[in-house]
């Protein structure tokens, strides 16, 4: 079933400066940096320490992520 409601959920944006400041201000382990691109893109360049879960795999791998922690997706 298409979950149309999902596409109406507002998402907060962070620009590159805000994200850099966030990463600087927060200890590792207190937030998640999630790369949802494909593996070849991840291998070419990534934000250091980002966790790779390509978007197509996300529905099945969501349990690898902590819902209590702030998360930045790119």
């Amino acid at each position, binding site marked *: 079933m298409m979950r149309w409601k999902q596409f109406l959920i507002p998402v*907060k944006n962070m620009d590159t400066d805000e994200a850099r400041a966030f990463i600087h201000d927060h200890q590792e382990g207190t937030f998640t940096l999630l790369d949802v691109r494909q593996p070849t893109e991840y291998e070419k360049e990534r934000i250091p320490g980002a966790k790779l879960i390509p978007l197509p795999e996300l529905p099945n791998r969501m349990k690898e992520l902590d819902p209590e922690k702030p998360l930045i997706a790119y």
Partner: protein
Amino acid sequence: MGGRSRAAAQMLSGMGFGEVYNLKGGMKAWQGLKAEGPIEMGMMYVRGDETPEDIITLAYGMEDGLGDFYASMADLTRDEEVKAVLKSLSQIEDKHKKKLYELYLDLQPETKDRDAFESAIAPDVMEGGFSTKDFIEAHRSDMETVEGVIIVAMMLETQALDLYLRYSHQTKDENTKGILQNIGDEEKAHLEKLGRLMEEKHGHSNLI
């Protein structure tokens, strides 16, 4: 392209993730440090079923390699300030090694001494998963200027940060995870220190 992270963010928000952000412009717009390399890079030493002791030993070997690298670069450079930075980086790696050894002792209290522990370390693995010798050979010509030394060190620290955090994702043991994250935080601090030095030497820096 950029729609993927937005879709991911929406999906996660919909599944009860409390605080989710979409990085505007994605990787293309990212102005900070970047790591690269195969997913399994540096992971050839990691099978996935490691004990915390194995992970500690691995990290210790890398800290040792990078410490050596900084110390030998400090001997080669003539700029006093860069020499001082390289020495201090090398000392921080020593602190990391001490911390890792203490953690190992907690897990293996019957360990005889540090020499016995060190004899079991995978030799010649530098932070970032390179071998020290290969790395110095490959970057010799890049390290003839102050700026070059800083850039190489930054690249190395970035790859190391990436590797530690990826190890931290992989390890199940909370204590080990915490140690790796803590080392990751210190690598971030190293990077900032190098960024500031670069700024002084070069006039500007937009790296972290």
